[in-house]
């Protein structure tokens, strides 16, 4: 069975069928979407079972020439990293479909766009052809504009200060503003990526978009020194790399629940994955030269993001800034160019995806009931929604790196890698960042769920019910399972790292060459 194609194309196929379904048939829409997400999840599980860890390398390859004259092929294959990230995407998609089960407004259109987006994400993780890779990348990014612009939420904020006239003009706080900002910032990133891809295509003389060919025809050192930063900033803008992260708080705050889940849960990982898989592996000399900068910026992300989260009082902004901070951990791991660091970086993609998916599902539940996001106006919510409180605490614990949760493994491996690669300051900054996370996460948990209350104005609160539990139990359970038994994905990630890291290191240290 071509499991990779099935996994990638199932959501696209479902989206195509949905176009033919009348908008009035809500049941069909949901069943079809759920079925497609289930097929993708199942496909991802099949892939991870079929992947042979002892052989390693690229497996389950499916090739079909598309435009041979330009060297463009439908070339799918999965490595160890892809296995874990496919699994993550399948889980988040499945949970996301159930988290928006009760959506009423133009639900058919919503699911079509959602499924298209996910097909893009899945495609990026398994494409070996840079052209198809980039195509999928854009398919993943663009629907976000409509998803936020149509189904997003607008927050009335008080605009003041000397620049109020400009901010009012931009409609800051509105969903159109958020959608536009996110899309434009990511598209500027895409422009950098495109330049990088063309440089790779032409520069080394490969004249082929296949990553394997490109790896055999590396760019000259001079070229790599500017191509790598282009790819880093291009992909990095999606990974929330400072200072190109500001689309993220506004975008995630305005986006509807499932979109936030997918966007923070998996889309931001596309950026980090791109930096590592394309940027670092195809421009190893550039990566080595730029690693100190990448790491330093990642340190800013970690600490600055955590402090930013602490300064926020809006629930969605708190979680969005925490994503900026945690994606910094991914980039920190990547910059170490160390086995533990890279294992940690990819594990953090996985762990953060589960955690932030769970967080945004919960935020959606809280917001849907309280119609408020100001955490310091809340209090005592645990009385009315104990289940939500429990799962919010679980997500928070994973986020602050509590052992037993997936987040601990990821962060700890990154710290090991950072210190081992000689960057003691990075490791310390990461550890301090984890402490700051503990401060703001527990503060938020206490402000929302603990204490007397809930206040008078929140009299409609109720616990999660029905299909809403699916997302919570699935993602919360996975956080614990993968936290207690990390080797379920760590083995695969390690195989991926063992495949890619030597490529990078041998570019600078000939003695490591095989």
């Amino acid at each position, binding site marked *: 069975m071509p499991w990779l194609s099935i996994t990638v194309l199932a959501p696209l196929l479902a989206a195509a069928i949905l176009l033919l379904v009348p908008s009035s048939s809500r049941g069909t829409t949901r069943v079809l979407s759920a079925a497609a997400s289930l097929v993708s999840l199942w496909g991802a599980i099949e892939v991870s079972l079929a992947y042979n860890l002892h052989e390693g390398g690229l497996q389950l390859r499916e090739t079909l020439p598309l435009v041979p004259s330009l060297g463009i092929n439908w070339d799918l294959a999965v490595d160890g990293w892809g296995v874990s990230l496919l699994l993550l995407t399948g889980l988040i998609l499945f949970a996301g479909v159930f988290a928006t089960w009760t959506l009423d407004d133009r639900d058919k259109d919503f699911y079509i766009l959602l499924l298209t987006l996910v097909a893009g994400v899945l495609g990026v993780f398994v494409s070996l052809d840079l052209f198809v890779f980039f195509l999928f990348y854009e398919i993943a990014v663009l629907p976000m504009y409509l998803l936020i612009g149509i189904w997003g939420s607008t927050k009335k904020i008080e605009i003041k200060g000397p620049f109020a006239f400009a901010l009012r003009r931009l409609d800051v706080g509105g969903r159109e503003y958020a959608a536009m900002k996110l899309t434009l910032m990511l598209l500027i990133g895409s422009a950098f990526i495109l330049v990088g891809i063309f440089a790779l295509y032409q520069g080394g003389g490969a004249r082929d978009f296949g990553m394997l060919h490109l790896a055999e025809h590396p760019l000259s050192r001079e070229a790599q020194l500017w191509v790598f930063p282009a790819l880093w900033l291009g992909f990095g803008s999606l990974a929330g790399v400072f200072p190109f992260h*500001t689309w993220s708080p506004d975008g995630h705050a305005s986006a509807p629940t499932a979109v936030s889940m997918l966007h923070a849960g998996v889309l931001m990982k596309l950026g980090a994955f791109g930096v590592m898989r394309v940027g670092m592996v195809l421009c190893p000399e550039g990566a080595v030269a730029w690693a100190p900068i990448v790491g330093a910026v990642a340190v800013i992300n970690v600490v600055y993001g955590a402090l930013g989260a602490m*300064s926020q009082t809006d629930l969605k902004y708190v979680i969005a800034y925490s994503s900026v901070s945690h994606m910094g951990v991914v980039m920190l791991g990547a910059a170490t160019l160390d086995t533990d660091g890279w294992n940690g970086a990819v594990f953090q993609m996985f762990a953060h995806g589960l955690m932030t998916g769970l967080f945004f599902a919960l935020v959606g539940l809280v917001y849907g009931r309280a119609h408020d996001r100001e955490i310091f106006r809340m209090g005592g919510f645990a009385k009315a929604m104990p289940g939500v409180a429990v799962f919010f605490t679980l997500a928070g614990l994973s986020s602050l790196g*509590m052992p*037993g949760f997936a987040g601990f493994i990821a962060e700890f491996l990154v710290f090991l890698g950072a210190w081992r690669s000689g960057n003691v300051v990075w490791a*310390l900054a990461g550890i301090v960042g984890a*402490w700051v996370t503990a*401060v703001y996460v527990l503060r938020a948990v206490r402000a929302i769920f*603990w204490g007397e209350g809930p206040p008078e104005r929140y009299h409609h609160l109720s616990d999660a019910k029905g299909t809403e539990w699916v997302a919570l139990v699935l993602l919360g359970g996975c956080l614990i399972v993968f936290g207690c038994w990390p080797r379920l994905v*760590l083995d695969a990630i390690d195989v991926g790292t063992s495949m890619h890291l030597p490529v990078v290191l041998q570019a600078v240290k000939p003695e490591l060459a095989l």
Partner: protein
Amino acid sequence: MIELAMVPVFLPLATFGVLAVLWPLRHSGMPAAWLSVASALASCVAAILAWTGAPVAGEPAQGMVFDWLVHDGKTIAEVGFRLDAISAPMLVVVTFVAACVQVYSLGYMAHEPRPALGRYFAWHSLFIVAMSGMVLAPNMLQFLACWELVGLCSYLLIGFYWDKPSAGRAAVKAVWVTRFADIGLMSGVVLLYVTTGGFAFEMTGDSGAATLVAALLFCGVMGKSAQVPLHVWLPDAMEGPTPVSALLHAATMVAAGVFLVVRAWPIFEAAPPVLTAMTWIGAVTALVAACTALVQHDIKKVLAYSTCSQLGYMVAALGTGSFFGGYFHLTTHAFFKALLFLAAGSVIHAVGTNDLREMGGLAKKTKLTAGLFILGALALAGVPPLSGFFSKDLVLEELLHAHAYGPLLICLAAAGLTAFYMTRVVCMAFLGPASARSLEAHESPPVMLLPMGALALTAAVAGFTTGRFGNDVALAPWHFAVTAPGVAALLLALGGIALAYMKYGQGKLAGLGVPALAAFIRSGPVDGLFVRGWQQGLRPLAGVVGWVDRYVVDGAVNLFGWAALVGSERMRVLQSGKLRDATYLLVMGALVVVAWGAIGGVR
């Protein structure tokens, strides 16, 4: 025997899992409680059996490990169990006190709503898992992981009354402070891996690296074991139910830091500067906390500061270069301090308040509780032949042998103060005229008295059981009594008891004490520093970052957006569609091109 040692991990884990998943059972209250108690008792029995068959000092450890983390296909960290002369006694202490506390809770917590009761016992089960996992840890990584999980249980149990704002604050504060210290611990573990390539409890070779690792690990110890100035969370942690204070915040969890030093002894042994610092920090903690305990009105706060003080003794003893005294004192302290807390809980249960000033004359109403409390107090004060005498004596003796005369004197002073403040509590709570609340007091039910009795027994006789506590020197129990510091400590303790009895029992010596100083100590000067650090340090810093992000970083983005918007509006004027404008622009453009060409030509 290793299979038996695994029982205290897996049985409570299963209990916790069942209670966490089967919410109807958890919400049923008492059945859940009994399930948890049964598994705790079984864990205790298994731990004792495992202890009797455990390797003694010098024998190889028994163990079982599973691969956990990998790196290039090779295992870098394992999880599992390691039973040896160090972990076995601690396992017994943990499970025994936990079992006593859980049985006691059946009575103490009986009036809680049923779902809350189920939750309470579920967390107690989780605590045994985490604590046993830490004690049996085969390497530093599992130790760290379980250490944090123990902290999680502490957070959850301090915040058990989560709808009470003060409990919420205390729970969060405990995590903030201990995790702040864990920045050091975590760095130490990472550095251990970086220097040795693994997480074993030992380092060979480079003593500079060992010193650094030991210093970093000790930062974590200072947080968890509440050493000055990181002790500020412990008194607040008394917001939790009293049995929780007995188990976590007196007997076992706070002693985890001391146990860490014992466990990682090969690393600490190779770091003499760290050991010296430990003696001083421990001694200062012992004295400062004892002074603070003198002036507290809340019976639990007195005991909390007393715990700090005793932890200071343990740390000071570890600093002398032998872990036996500290470890021994940990053990005896676990018994008598748990007893004191449970007895205090029984008192609180009886009078409905924590405030010593509202108690008095309780000895008549609650004879058994009073007797048990006084037994615990005497053990803590170091009166022979109770266990506290032997262990405290050993601590002082080790300080003398290590020629640490400064810390020795400080610890002796603290010993006198200890006797003084415990006598003060006994006088204020149990002697004197009965207060209004005391008149309505009643003795606690047998389910609470029985576990107190069991602890009283161990608190009395634990001093004679030195043989199997991980020591490599055979020590006879009566060996202690003849040493100079032992005699001095005993005299000081008796003096403290006499003084306190005269002041609080008989109302003499009114001039003893400095009210202004007492008020200053009571106001929590160290606490104030942390509050200021939060209010004037971290929170404003976060505010600055938030401002910078909104107005500088995001401001740049918005500037681009605004410029594009406004600029395009201005440019739109050019595209008016009028022939006149188009002609004008065409001519101007042509002129520019010609001018450019002309200038270029000249050059």
